[in-house]
């Protein structure tokens, strides 16, 4: 038993796509400092509308481009000496020098913006994306309400939070749900989890089906079927800030039913209620995540969730040699 998750087997940072912001948080010309994966980064949106992420510290004298930096065209200007860097990290101007030093460049990070979310590709060896940003099955913008967005900063690690998602007995205890029959299935690099829950919503007993897709450690989504009037979709991202902290972003939408103005407004109202319930349930887990002790071989009474499968899946996404084949020996 140890306090910390063993680093070499389950590192805090895996390889893959991670959400770093919602689109509405970054207007044209905005510059933001980011801290993820233990690194200082700068996120900015050029005048073209494209978002870029670079290492934060200017190679000249080390100023943080995200603190006081300004956008000019599709470049970010350093607040210290005015050096300009484009979205690929190339220095395009040193205002007081005729010649740009050949070493004046910054590592850039691959960014994809889709469906109102901004994602970055992270790889331990800084390799280019090995797969495209995963698709959220069943999502088409017009058919769903706008996202209700919630960011939770947790003093925890991604793996602890993921274990919570697949650890069904505690789900019951913490959230007061009815009995559940979890079903876990591995499809290549993806873990699929199906679970039935019952709870009371708007004065009715609701039997809902949760269909959880763990695409990669930073990117998952959950379809909730069987809600009154509608279905819900939760896109959940886990982005490690450092080895002790992780940001969980939840984007919650409900499926529209009917196209009338009244139906749309009803769905928006319902979205507020359901999102509030979901976030409250997440908040109940915070003390568990934040005080959890990692057991390398947890004591497993019968009926405990499929944690070993999850850990193998996680370790596979952390392996630097990508597409590592994870052994299929579970069960």
């Amino acid at each position, binding site marked *: 038993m140890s306090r910390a998750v063993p680093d070499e087997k389950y590192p805090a940072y895996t390889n893959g796509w991670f959400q770093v912001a919602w689109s509405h948080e970054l207007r044209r010309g905005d510059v933001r*400092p980011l801290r993820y994966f233990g690194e*200082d980064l700068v996120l900015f949106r050029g005048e073209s509308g494209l978002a870029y992420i670079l290492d934060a*510290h*200017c*190679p*000249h*004298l*080390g*100023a*943080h481009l995200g*603190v*006081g930096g300004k956008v000019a065209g599709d470049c970010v200007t350093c*607040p*210290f*000496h*005015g050096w300009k860097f484009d979205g690929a990290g190339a220095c395009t101007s*040193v*205002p*007081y*020098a*005729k*010649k*740009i*030093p050949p*070493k*004046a460049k910054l590592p850039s990070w691959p960014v994809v913006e889709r469906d109102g979310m901004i994602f970055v590709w992270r790889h331990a060896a800084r390799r280019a994306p090995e797969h495209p940003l995963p698709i959220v099955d069943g999502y088409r913008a017009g058919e769903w309400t706008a996202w209700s967005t919630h960011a939770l900063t947790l003093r925890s690690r991604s793996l602890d939070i993921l274990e919570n998602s697949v650890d069904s007995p505690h789900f019951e205890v913490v959230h007061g749900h009815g009995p559940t029959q979890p079903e876990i299935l591995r499809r290549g690099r993806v873990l699929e989890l199906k679970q039935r829950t019952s709870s009371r919503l708007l004065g009715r007993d609701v039997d809902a089906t949760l269909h959880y897709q763990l695409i990669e450690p930073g990117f998952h989504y959950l379809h909730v079927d069987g809600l009154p009037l509608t279905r819900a979709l939760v896109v959940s991202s886990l982005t490690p800030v450092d080895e002790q902290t992780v940001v969980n972003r939840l984007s919650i939408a409900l499926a529209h039913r009917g196209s009338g103005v009244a139906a749309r407004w009803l769905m928006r109202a319902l979205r507020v209620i359901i999102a509030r319930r979901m976030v409250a349930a997440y908040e109940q887990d915070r003390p568990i995540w934040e005080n959890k002790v990692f057991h390398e071989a947890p004591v497993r009474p019968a009926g405990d969730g499929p944690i070993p499968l999850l850990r193998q899946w996680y370790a596979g996404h952390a392996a630097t040699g990508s597409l590592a084949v994870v052994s299929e020996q579970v069960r």
Partner: protein
Amino acid sequence: MTAPRFPFPATPNSWYHLVWSDELPRGRTLRVPAFSTVLLARRRADGVAEVMEERPRARRTGARLWTVREQDGMILVHYHADGAPPSFEVPPIALCSAPGWLNVGRAEWILRSHIQELVENSVDLAHFQLLHRFSEPAQLVDFGAQAQSFSVTVSAPKLVLGVPRSMKLTIEYHGMGVAVGRTEGPLRFANVVTNLPLDAERMRLRFHMFARVPRVPVVHRALAAALRWHVRQDVEDEMTVLEHKRYLERPVLAAGDGPIMSVRRWCRQFYPPTTAVSAGVA
């Protein structure tokens, strides 16, 4: 767990400005945090200022008295990692008593930075334009380092209350703790700038500002207020950069950057040889 922010010790061996003389009347004792400890500064009944550690680390040595100088309205204390006596003195700063120069006030800040950043900053020609409202890149007129002092002179038009005025600025450092900056040009002012290491992460920056102005009270007051405002703007813009920057041992420099690497070499003499600023490790 995380690597230290700076590749050198928090406190170089130098003279440091601990308190202003007028903060310490006879009989008073002040607690002054500095050098990751707490110092006591007191003025005896006979007028002599003394500095000692509040809780001496080695009981045997007892309350060792630090080496102190009192000059130009400042109580300076000498820090040496091995307790060695001073190898240099801070020369008197003439303008503090020169006729025609008026004291226009003091200012101070605590910032998350290392004093070497401030020393390097004085020869960082390219930063004047963005952070100190120079209307064109500053030009190096002169740089010379001699023993424990160096002097740098730059020239550039500076925007003073929105109007570009041709200006020459000379900064002299005496050790890494005490500097004097003077301008020549239509507006003449001068700052005594002092750096005091507080601990591994923070330092105290103090300014004592002087201007050469007609001795007409209204002019004096207006100008003093304008100058204080100006200094505050300049320092506070820069503070944001300094507090968030990373110290690069191998900066990518461009033509026009100023003698930054010369100043880094000059700084090495103030660190113990074993911890001298490394040329960087692979």
